[in-house]
């Protein structure tokens, strides 16, 4: 499983691996927002936590269909399914690789983009913390969506349609924590809820994803 994780990380960082693509997308979305709502600092500061969360979520979405589609095309998925590691482990390793190449860079990049959006000083720590707690859930849920649509030729759009509603609770609690943090309010409740969602998703969803892949391979 470690071997699989390392291979996926290596693939992502090689040419054409798409590493950094979602980070660039995140940057562009964030830059576009002031063009849409105007350059006034007060408004930007107020919506910054939400914009950064929505931006991170969309950037995460961008790379989901690569999780299994490439392995399906070149036959690796068949071979992995017949390999001596459980498919649940394969799915978990893939989700972790996705988080390390997408969620983690987004988390680290968000504070920088926060500067662009006049995020209040008190908000940076909470924004980073909420993303750190929430993005693993985004990766795991996204892996589930990718597993559902792996057999489809044009699954990309459907994948978004399936995954976005599942992202709602994570987004609500994550953005709420970041917003409360930037307004200097208590953040414990949303952060705990967020951690709870992530823990639950990480614990349960790999089983659902593995089941979906088995169905799609047969």
């Amino acid at each position: 499983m470690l071997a699989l994780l390392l291979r996926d990380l290596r693939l992502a960082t090689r040419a054409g691996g798409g590493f950094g693509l979602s980070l660039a997308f995140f940057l562009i979305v964030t830059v576009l927002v002031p063009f849409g709502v105007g350059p006034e600092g007060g408004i930007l500061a107020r919506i910054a936590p939400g914009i950064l969360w929505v931006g991170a979520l969309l950037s995460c979405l961008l790379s989901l269909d690569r999780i299994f589609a490439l392995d399906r095309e070149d036959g690796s998925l068949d071979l992995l399914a017949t390999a001596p590691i459980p498919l649940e482990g394969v799915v978990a390793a893939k989700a972790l690789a996705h988080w390390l190449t997408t969620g983690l860079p987004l988390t680290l990049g968000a504070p920088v983009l926060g500067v662009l959006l006049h995020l209040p000083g008190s908000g940076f720590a909470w924004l980073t913390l909420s993303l750190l707690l929430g993005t693993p859930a985004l990766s795991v849920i996204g892996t589930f969506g990718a597993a559902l649509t792996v057999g489809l030729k044009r699954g990309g759009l459907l994948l978004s349609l399936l995954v976005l509603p599942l992202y709602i609770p994570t987004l609500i609690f994550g953005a709420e924590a970041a917003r409360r943090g930037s307004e200097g309010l208590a953040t414990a409740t949303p952060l705990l809820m967020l951690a709870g969602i992530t823990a639950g998703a990480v614990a349960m969803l790999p089983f659902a994803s593995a089941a979906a892949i088995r169905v799609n391979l047969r």
Partner: protein
Amino acid sequence: MILGVHDLAVTRGGIAILDGVGFGLRAGEALILRGPNGIGKTTLLRTVAGLQPPRAGRMELPPEGAAYAGHADGLKATLSVTENLTFWARIYGQSDIAPALAAMELEALAGRPAQNLSAGQKRRLGLARLLVTGRRLWLLDEPTVSLDAASVGLFAKAVRRHLASGGAALMATHIDLGLDEARVLDLTPFRAKPAAPGQGGGFDDQFDGAFA
């Protein structure tokens, strides 16, 4: 007995295509599945590999499972030959890839990214993957597609060595593999007959008479 298949029925897209297939493979034996296109060779192999459930029948597999090689080789274009092979070796809990590289004469290409290999070289790398799985039973789907005569010879040699060391191989192909000692099983007689009305066990056969 390494592989035993009894009265197996397999489906493709929910429709029975083969019925009553039975054969056995002992250590050191190779069996070649033959039959016209679409008869269900690939489906049978995938069923034996555990990628899809059989519709009926029984299979006895080695406890550690089988090594399956399908139409695609499972290679990553941007990884080198060594990296590709090391990855699969580690997945199967092995570490030494040198013998496999040697057997398929890939040493000279070891550092080259898979995307720069010719079709035949890719196929050889795919077959080298089998050697690092450490599995006794090989399930091969069209293993010699896009191989030239010399490479087919290499392949035959690798299979013979595998058989000699107590392994077994089940292969689907319609071209000559250069393995004259292998038994051949023609799947044509096992083609599933369209179920007589009301006779099939599946959901789709339960309807007859429902709309009279």
